[in-house]
């Protein structure tokens, strides 16, 4: 059992938090939100491959 426990990663990993006043967000969540915003903008501005040749 102790061997199994030692193989498991440390369960206490609070991560990095950013805060502005009352607003606080964990770094992973912030990265996901920024990635979604970037995907949204790229989807609007990037040309679609082969799009012009279609009817």
């Amino acid at each position, binding site marked *: 059992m102790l061997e199994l426990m030692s193989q498991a990663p440390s369960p*206490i990993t609070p991560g990095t938090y950013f805060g502005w006043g009352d607003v606080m967000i964990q770094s992973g969540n912030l990265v996901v939100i920024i990635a979604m915003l970037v*995907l*949204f903008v790229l*989807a609007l501005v990037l040309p679609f491959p082969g799009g012009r040749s279609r009817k």
Partner: protein
Amino acid sequence: MSTVKESSPDPEVAGTGAYTWTGKSRQWFLRHLPPDKLLPEDQPSYVATWAYVFGMGAVAGLVFIIGSGVVLSLNGPQWYHVSSLGHFTNSVHLWSVELFFMFMVVHLWIKFWMAAWRGGRLLTWITGMVAFLVSIVTAFTGYLLQTNFDSQWIAFEAKDALNAVGIGAWFNVANLGQIFMWHIMLLPLAVGAVVALHVVLVRAHGVVPPLDAAGTDAQLRDSNGTSPEPEANQP
């Protein structure tokens, strides 16, 4: 009696065969979901943009989620919490969920600003929202199954909220076995059914045109043999 029979067309003579519930169902499906709508050969030109990719991206994510989830459930926690391949499959499951939600949220944003409920697509919009909500509950039960301090913390914070809305008695987040069954059986069935209905509705109504190409939508409906309805009457 005989005059009544003569006034209504005999389905056998008319060749429709729609005098049983199976025949009537077949006619209904053929009328609303003809094969060329379900599996179309091509799409309107306005679909050739990245903005129309994210719905299918979310479906691709869901396929990976279900595939990795099946492998996880076949092998069990003693495998995926300890072995290298188990850890990898567990990570594939997690990252498929991350991509599923990211694609789904971008899909939601794009469709919201396109007013994608136009042209009789209200039910498509509603099933999309239901799919989003059911997916959140499913992901939540997945977080509870990590069986670490994170999941314990999430469960004991969430139980107060669930008790407050009155469902804590039968949806008990501290009951690992119950949440396990919800996560691998009931909620995947619900997500799968709602997403399937959503995709079928998209196929039935066609993908929504951009706002500046709304006239194309009427042309599409005309070419499908259905009578166009005034845009003002659409929900």
